[in-house]
């Protein structure tokens, strides 16, 4: 955070807001998944969304790039409101990367092919340029020697690192992570978190849904606690983890076995 602040042009008081949620609501029939969420994400910030399963974290993340339509409210990306029609949000999606719990690598493409797909299809890059970009990204996530492996021949941790590289290939301004380590064997969680940590250190704006409290504590600039489709508490990680203000947060943390 201090690094990010140091990089700001002279005269700025606050880093600019990249994503703004205004009273975002989502209902599935009678069921209220999001009950009015207001939140700002600033450039260079790492925001971690935590809270019990079913509390609406994924729904909010999916409303961010329009994979899910809101029932009401607004999401602004870089000052532009997302369209209610999910098909109209293509340009915004190009500028936001997304990493899924189940990786969702394309099984019919190699690791390199997965990473080249976005730049070639969406940005119209030549195969040669896309390959150069993909090779650099594979090196960045430490998987250069797995370039020609198909996803089926990669471990979970390796697949998720390729998935991160695939999202980065679009050179996004924001990265969205939806429980990126929840489907992983414990021994491969670390390698994925390391890649994410380095991304954060490079100044990437990140919104991360996670149950990895150690990661949230060490990497997040801002932690948001969800319960029943609402934000029940938010603040600096020290505040949330060491001095939680609400019983909801305390219950959730003690349920996870977090003891500060």
């Amino acid at each position: 955070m201090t690094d990010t602040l140091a990089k700001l042009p002279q005269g700025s008081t606050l880093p600019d807001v990249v994503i703004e949620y205004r009273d975002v609501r989502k209902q599935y029939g009678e069921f209220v998944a999001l009950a009015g969420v207001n939140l700002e994400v600033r450039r260079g910030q790492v925001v971690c969304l935590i809270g019990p399963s079913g509390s609406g974290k994924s729904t909010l993340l999916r409303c961010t790039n329009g994979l899910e339509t809101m029932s009401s409210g607004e999401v602004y990306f870089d000052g532009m409101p997302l369209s209610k029609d999910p098909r109209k949000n293509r340009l915004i999606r190009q500028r936001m990367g997304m990493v899924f719990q189940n990786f969702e690598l394309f099984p019919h493409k190699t690791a390199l092919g997965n990473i080249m797909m976005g730049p070639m299809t969406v940005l119209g890059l030549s195969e040669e340029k896309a390959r150069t970009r993909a090779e650099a990204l594979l090196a960045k996530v430490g998987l250069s020697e797995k370039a020609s492996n198909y996803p089926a021949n990669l471990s979970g941790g390796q697949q998720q690192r390729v998935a991160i590289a695939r999202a980065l290939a679009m050179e996004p301004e924001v990265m969205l992570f939806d429980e990126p380590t929840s489907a992983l064997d414990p021994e491969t969680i670390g390698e994925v978190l390391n890649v994410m940590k380095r991304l954060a250190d490079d100044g990437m704006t990140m919104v991360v849904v996670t149950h990895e409290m150690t990661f949230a504590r060490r990497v997040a600039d801002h932690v948001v606690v969800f319960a029943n489709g609402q934000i029940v508490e938010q603040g600096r990680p020290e505040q949330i983890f060491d001095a939680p203000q609400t019983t909801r947060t305390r219950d959730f943390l003690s349920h996870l076995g977090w003891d500060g």
Partner: protein
Amino acid sequence: MTFDWSIIWQSMGALWQGALVTIALTVLTMVLAVPLGIVVALLRESRLKPVSALATAYVELMRNVPIILVVYWAFYVLPILTGVGFSPFLTGLVALVLNNTAYNSETFRSGIRSIRKGQTEAGLALGMSEGEAFRKIVLPQAWRRVLPILATTWVTLFKDTSLVSVIAVGDLAHTALQIRSQSFRVIEMLTAMAAIYWLLGYPQAKIVDWIHRKYGVTE
């Protein structure tokens, strides 16, 4: 009862011609009914209710009406509808394509549905359009899953082309049955017909088995 197998050798040229027509019908039907099947599968998933309803009605009609009826229907109704006279071959082709498109659309629909929604979403999240995500991500994966089913359809189609013989398309079945009724060599011609269908069909069935082994089980 005496047999005169020489009739087969005398008719070899005609039978060969008929076999070629049968093969041509099978190939052309499949070449047309595969892309059309994809189109109908997509129309059934259309957001526009009348479009999907119409496509569904077409598929359900074709799946539940005997092919031979479609063949007769094409023979009598097609010229009225279009005002143009169709050759028997073209009429037979239209009937087979109508029928096969319906079956293939069901095959593709189940193949497309078997691909997790998350795969499309991964493409959309990269900024792809729905169409790009379908062509680059869903279709190539669905293709591997539908290939074994399409192969089975192919072998069935090869045999079902014989149904167009009722409108005098010069296919193998029609040719053999013609020679039978002119020469009265019933047993000989039916045997020859069976032998030729088998000779042509058996290698195809073996290829289908191989496709099933190669693509059938893998994820």
